[in-house]
């Protein structure tokens, strides 16, 4: 059992942070790697990239958005409750090198995943411009942490309620126009990663994205997380989760994420009838 020692609701309760006791994973985990969590006996195995690890206290932190039954079930867990299973660290860590000027683009809960990578890149001697975006001000998460992890933080909201009005790609364009960006890391919703990659391709700037397709085991055994990268099939769980953003087939990924949409809806609707207070 993996006990929750800290729980925080963010973005008007649509996003939840859990700090979980998992000493073996905390000792090994590096930025960019993920874990698989299972709440209870009947639960689904859900992959989430870690937002923080604390090897000394033996904890890992995950941040998830309520998107369906399984994440709604996670939300019911309080401090002192436990996940039945946590498996990891899985996937390859981010390659942290001194490159120069790096732009870290985070959207939605992708900001939580972006944070440790941003910090590691900064500690690795890079100059970091961070761009974070959300639909509206109240849904923005981890602003303060991202500010500390970067040299410059640009905030975008779709409705203009905070920071710059518009998508992260618009802010990114201004940064790229300066012409001194060596690398972009983008983590967030698939459409965001797609359009960031499309833009950086025009500028010829290397781009890394972190993918989160549907998976079961996370160890390369099931092949459910197949993604097409550079025309070849890769398993996100062992070959990724990070890939060259210019070579990912995002349209295929978006379709594959819909594989179980009807089942997911049915499951979530049933859950909401039982526990309306945990609905998104």
């Amino acid at each position, binding site marked *: 059992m993996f006990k929750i020692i800290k729980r925080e609701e963010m973005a008007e309760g649509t996003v939840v942070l859990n700090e979980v006791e998992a000493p073996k994973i905390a000792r*090994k985990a590096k930025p960019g790697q993920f874990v698989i969590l299972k709440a209870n006996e009947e639960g689904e195995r859900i992959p989430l990239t870690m937002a923080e690890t604390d090897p000394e206290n033996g904890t890992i932190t995950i941040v998830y958005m309520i998107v369906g039954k399984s994440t709604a079930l996670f939300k019911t867990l309080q401090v002192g409750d436990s996940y039945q299973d946590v498996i990891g660290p899985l996937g390859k860590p981010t390659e942290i090198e001194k490159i120069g000027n790096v732009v870290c683009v985070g959207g939605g809960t992708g900001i939580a995943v972006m944070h440790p990578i941003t910090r590691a890149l900064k500690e690795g001697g890079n100059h970091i411009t961070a761009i974070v975006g959300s639909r509206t001000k109240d849904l923005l998460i981890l602003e303060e942490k991202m500010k500390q992890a970067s040299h410059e933080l640009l905030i975008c909201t779709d409705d203009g309620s905070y920071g710059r009005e518009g998508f992260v790609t618009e802010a990114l364009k201004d940064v790229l126009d300066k012409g001194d960006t060596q690398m972009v890391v983008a983590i967030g919703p698939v459409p965001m990663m797609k359009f960031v990659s499309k833009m950086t391709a025009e500028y010829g700037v290397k781009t890394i994205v972190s993918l989160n397709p549907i998976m*079961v085991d996370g160890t390369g055994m*099931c*092949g*459910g997380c197949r993604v*097409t990268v550079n025309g070849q099939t890769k398993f996100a769980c062992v070959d990724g989760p990070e890939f060259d953003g210019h070579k990912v087939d995002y349209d295929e990924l978006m*379709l594959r994420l819909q594989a179980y949409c009807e*089942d997911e809806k049915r499951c979530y609707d049933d859950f909401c009838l039982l526990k309306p207070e945990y609905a998104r």
Partner: protein
Amino acid sequence: MAEKAVKAKKEKIPRQPMPEQEPQVRARNFEEVPLGYTPETAMEEAKRCLQCKKPACIAGCPVEVDIPGFIKLIKEGDFTASIRNLWSKNSLPAVCGRVCPQEIQCEVVCIVGKKGDPVAIGNLERFAADYERAHGSGALPPRAKLTGKKVAVVGSGPSGLTVAGDLIAKGHEVTVLEAFHKPGGVLVYGIPEFRLPKEIVFQEVNFLERQGVKVECNAVVGRTVSLDELFVEEGYDAVYIGVGAGLPRFLNIPGENLIGILSANEYLTRANLMKAYMFPEVDTPIPRGKNVIVLGAGNVTMDSARTARRLGADKVRVVYRRSRDEMPARTAEIHHAEEEGIEFFLLTNPTKYLGNEQGRLTGMVCLKMELGEPDDSGRRRPVPIQGSEFELECDLCIVAVGSGANPLLTQSTPDMQLNNWGYIEADPETGKTTKKGVWAGGDIVTGAATVILAMGAGRKAADSIHQYLTWGW
């Protein structure tokens, strides 16, 4: 007297049939298909064993079970003594009685089978184990004096559990590390409930735990902990690797990433380990195709096809590029599948998948094949017939064309030698790898094979590990 003897011979007892669920009934449920012998039928069947002086059946068994011995005890009605006899050679009799290919191992060489049907060795083994589980005393096998040596077993499938059982009995401290959240390996994620109820596997694991084996789930060796750390940081004296093959093969033809194409590993893991057939009572979904194609012809193919049937498919077709004679599945499994209405499209090879705008599978293009000259495997090579393309409709395709070696553990252990296909090089007699203190066995050494061969490899490795812990490398 002579006349009487002849008469007695004529009244031969026929092989006792195994009662089964009716095909129409079982095709819609996940309960076990064969129902098992009663004590009376088991004793009757046991009478058929000739108690040969030089039993060929023992030599036919990869773990050399004392077959006439345990059968004699069933005949005498001493079921407890019978299971003890089995345990002395086989730590998983309830499993082996169900999934071993007896027809190519012990039963094929049975003398009774020379004229008529062989003794139902598998059914009797299953009976002894099931009887013990239902009525046994729960007494544990004897354990040798503790040695103070620690052994890590990586993977809790059939070979790992065999190693654990053998070494705990010899007085060593044994910890089994399992990457999934439940122990049992392929017995749990791969073989369906209707062929091997999971409760049986968990009881076998529990039996090992009661003997002192520690089972640690959610431990991915190669990620959570490395092989070297098991020695250096966790103080193990020896490590056995039995992680299975664990890398799904696909056909690498166009359209393979359409929604509705799953590896058998994924499909069966969802159904068996995650119990997705109970969705939405459990949270893991599984695609329920109406018109299903399963590619391949092995036992995993039959398991996938029969699972699809139980999940409500109207039509399930097995598509295989060779002919019936080359199908690697057990005859009994093919027979069970046919009884359940699974159709076979033989000498047929898909060349591409077809999909709609939602990225969902709608069918496949196939080529007709004919058999040519034998290939490296000794089987006649399938050759495409020019211009024979045709389309098959389907809304779900399970790719069950075999597995390769999963590199997760081996990649993080560069000083252990692998063969050209990525499998671990291990001595066939001892299971020793090229890395000191490390043994390996089962599918990660041989490539995908059977439960009992993995157990045989585990038995040899356990003997070798015991020698090492007693005398040195």
